[in-house]
């Protein structure tokens, strides 16, 4: 059987098993015919953490790295057998899929050990900054949130540099050009260098309860004002059992800054102007704050204590009807064993901005305004690593086409960062209601192409995005400022002081 036929066959088997049209015994027999080992078949019945669908863990035992890829790993890793690689990463679908189900194949083929620490985002930042400051090389690979790109640029290898320096270690067909160009620019590029390659792409899309929208006679909103009117109507009609909108608005947390940028950019504003001064307190910025304040009134009362986890839970548990947030949530919502809303959610592009978006030239530090806030991350090899070559092999494998397909399937329908992965038959096979669905990926792809907003790149951004801005926004929603202007002027003063050094 040709490799492509085997993939098609596996995808169909997976689809039938997930839909319940094939029992476990029959699925195992089919998988066995595909030449899979007993070890692979025995995995995946344990409880699953958030964002790692369990139903798929069993079904997707039929999915494993291609023989060609594993042969390359085996061949190129021969001098490095026995090496241990370390990576600290956020708990995201790619990392969870690699850590729990895929790295075993890499380890078996390469003879290396890969230790992956899965941590909350703020702890990843802490470990990364300490490793950079101490230059100890504790971690061989860095998981770099796009907001840290400028801060880490000098401490990681540019993948183009690694490709040129190590042609013998280059994975056949692996090229930076294969990644979505918008993601390379928005996530991995800092000035002229590449801070690794795009690894994951959580991005804001609009998700809503189809049943509630039908009940209310609404269709998906096309403008921000229409969205507010719908959210208000739902809260007025169904509250406090159901709220029209939700958010990730915990004071002092990065998630609050993410929400803010979507409304800011959506009202034609920007974080910085062309002179590098904070611009969130200009007319457009204040208009955005006024909109956000009104929308906040349609959200559940606990929203100011939630990060993205609480926001996702509010949809999953049927407390809120809509959210403009990370598309990665969508497959989780479709999992009937984990949520109350399986099959009830729909995904569309975010409502159109109220005013024309500012251009990159009108903003500062490479900021790209867009209602689809992206929170992507890149994967890069640390310059402090004692094992840069083995780490480079792992990085190519982890971001290869083959591995991304498996991540997207096993990791619960997360958005791939490579163009071709969206069209892979194994991904298309999951375009149906159920855990790990990929039925939202068309929207993700359109959003990346048309609506994507990226934060500015400057070394101080990590402090601004994780403290200066969200702490003061938290004070704003706690009622500690008398007006939108007072709040934004306070942020402006603090931000400009930090940026000017």
């Amino acid at each position: 059987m040709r490799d492509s036929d085997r993939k098609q066959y596996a995808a169909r088997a997976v689809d039938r098993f997930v839909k319940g049209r094939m029992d476990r015994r029959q699925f195992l027999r089919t998988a066995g015919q595909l030449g899979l080992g007993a070890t692979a078949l025995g995995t995946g019945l344990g409880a699953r953490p958030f964002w790692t669908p369990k139903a798929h863990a069993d079904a997707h035992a039929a999915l494993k790295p291609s023989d060609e890829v594993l042969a390359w790993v085996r061949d190129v890793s021969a001098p490095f057998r026995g090496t241990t690689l370390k990576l600290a990463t956020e708990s995201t679908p790619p990392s969870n899929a690699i850590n729990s189900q895929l790295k075993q194949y890499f380890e078996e083929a390469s003879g290396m050990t890969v230790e992956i620490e899965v941590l909350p985002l703020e702890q990843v930042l802490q470990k990364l900054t300490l490793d950079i400051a101490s230059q100890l090389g504790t971690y061989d690979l860095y998981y770099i949130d796009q907001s840290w790109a400028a801060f880490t640029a000098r401490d990681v290898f540019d993948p183009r540099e690694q490709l040129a320096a190590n042609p013998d270690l280059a994975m056949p067909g692996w090229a930076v050009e294969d990644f979505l160009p918008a993601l390379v620019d928005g996530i991995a590029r800092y000035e002229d260098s590449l801070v690794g390659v795009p690894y994951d792409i959580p991005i804001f899309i609009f998700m809503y309860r189809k049943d509630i929208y039908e009940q209310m006679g609404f269709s998906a909103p096309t403008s921000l004002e229409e969205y507010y009117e719908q959210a208000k109507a739902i809260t007025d009609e169904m509250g406090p059992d159901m709220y029209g909108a939700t958010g990730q608005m915990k004071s002092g947390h990065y998630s609050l800054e993410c929400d803010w940028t979507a409304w800011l950019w959506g009202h034609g504003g920007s974080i910085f102007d062309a002179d590098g001064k904070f611009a969130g307190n200009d007319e457009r910025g204040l208009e955005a704050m006024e909109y956000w304040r009104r929308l906040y009134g349609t959200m559940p009362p606990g929203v100011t204590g939630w990060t993205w986890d609480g926001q996702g839970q509010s949809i999953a548990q049927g407390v809120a009807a809509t959210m403009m947030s990370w598309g990665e949530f969508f497959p989780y919502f479709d999992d009937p064993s984990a949520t109350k809303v399986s099959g009830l959610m729909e995904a569309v592009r975010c409502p159109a901005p109220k005013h024309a978006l500012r251009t990159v030239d009108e903003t500062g530090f490479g900021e790209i305004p867009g209602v689809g806030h992206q929170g992507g991350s890149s994967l890069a090899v640390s310059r402090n690593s004692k094992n840069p070559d083995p780490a480079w092999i792992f990085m190519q494998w982890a971001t290869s086409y083959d591995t991304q397909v498996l991540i997207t399937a096993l990791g619960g329908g997360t958005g791939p960062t490579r163009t071709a992965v969206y069209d892979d038959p194994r991904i298309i096979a999951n375009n149906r209601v159920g855990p790990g669905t990929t039925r939202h990926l068309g929207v993700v792809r359109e959003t990346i192409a048309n609506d994507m907003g990226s934060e500015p790149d400057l070394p101080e951004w990590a402090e601004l995005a994780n403290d200066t801005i969200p702490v003061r926004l938290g004070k704003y929603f706690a009622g500690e400022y008398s007006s939108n202007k007072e709040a934004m002027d306070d942020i402006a003063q603090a931000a400009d002081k930090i940026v000017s050094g």
Partner: protein
Amino acid sequence: MPAVTSAKAVFSSDHPLPWLFPLIAMLVVFTIYPLIYNIWLSFHEYAPFRRELEYVGTDNWVALWNDERFWGSLSVTLTYFVVVLIIELVLGMAIALLLDADLAGFGVMRGLLTLTLVIPPAITGMMFLLIQDAEFGVLTWVLEQVGVLDGTAPILSTPSTALLGVMLADIWQWTPFMVLIFLAGLRGLPGEPYEAAMLDGASGWQIFRRITLPQLSKVIAIAVLLRGIDLFRMFDYVFVMTSGGPGTATYTLSLYAWQQTFSFIKWGYGATISLVSLVLILVIANLFIWIAKVRW
């Protein structure tokens, strides 16, 4: 065998130095050196682009003096320190006096008091985060039922109540510690003064104020000092429950020092904040010892 002879001489000596040496060595390594390094660090700052510590003179101290966030954190820390200490002290003493009576079942209750102490504070923080959750928290529900909360202002997301919400976790976990210390003190008190006071017709309050309190003063002083120092460097609960928010309503000095040191790699500034905390703890502790006239 000169080596054996000299070792024998050292260990048979009446001079205290050989016996104090291990303790002195440990103090130097674990206390004095870090303290001196911290002082040195407060006059330096990490330069991320040069990847080195550079001398900045008194910049960190001047910046600290002008830093509103520092003064805000200090205010939160002092408020937390005073309120929690008083509540734990009063509540701990009241419960200890109650449990000192040997009624049936009180032995078991005294044993159960140790349970909260073995729970890691971060776990306690998580528990109280859920208890005070705006959607399904049991405390939120109870307070809404009795009309204290109206459902629009979650405890931990409202500036006026967030610190109280955090304090609750601390009081729940550490009041039993006070109870156990006071109980141990009460059990060691002689019975004669009480018998004499009762014969003289003294009231319960007079007995407590004139006999129990004076005799327990050293025990109380130890409990207050231990808890006071703990409260001043409180970190776990705010880290888990509020991250210092809403806004800066629950930002303590420890959390601020941690953030500056580990999140923003401002090692010098973080060291400066830590030093101020240390000085404040020393001043307050010594002031307390002086005021309470504790003689160790």
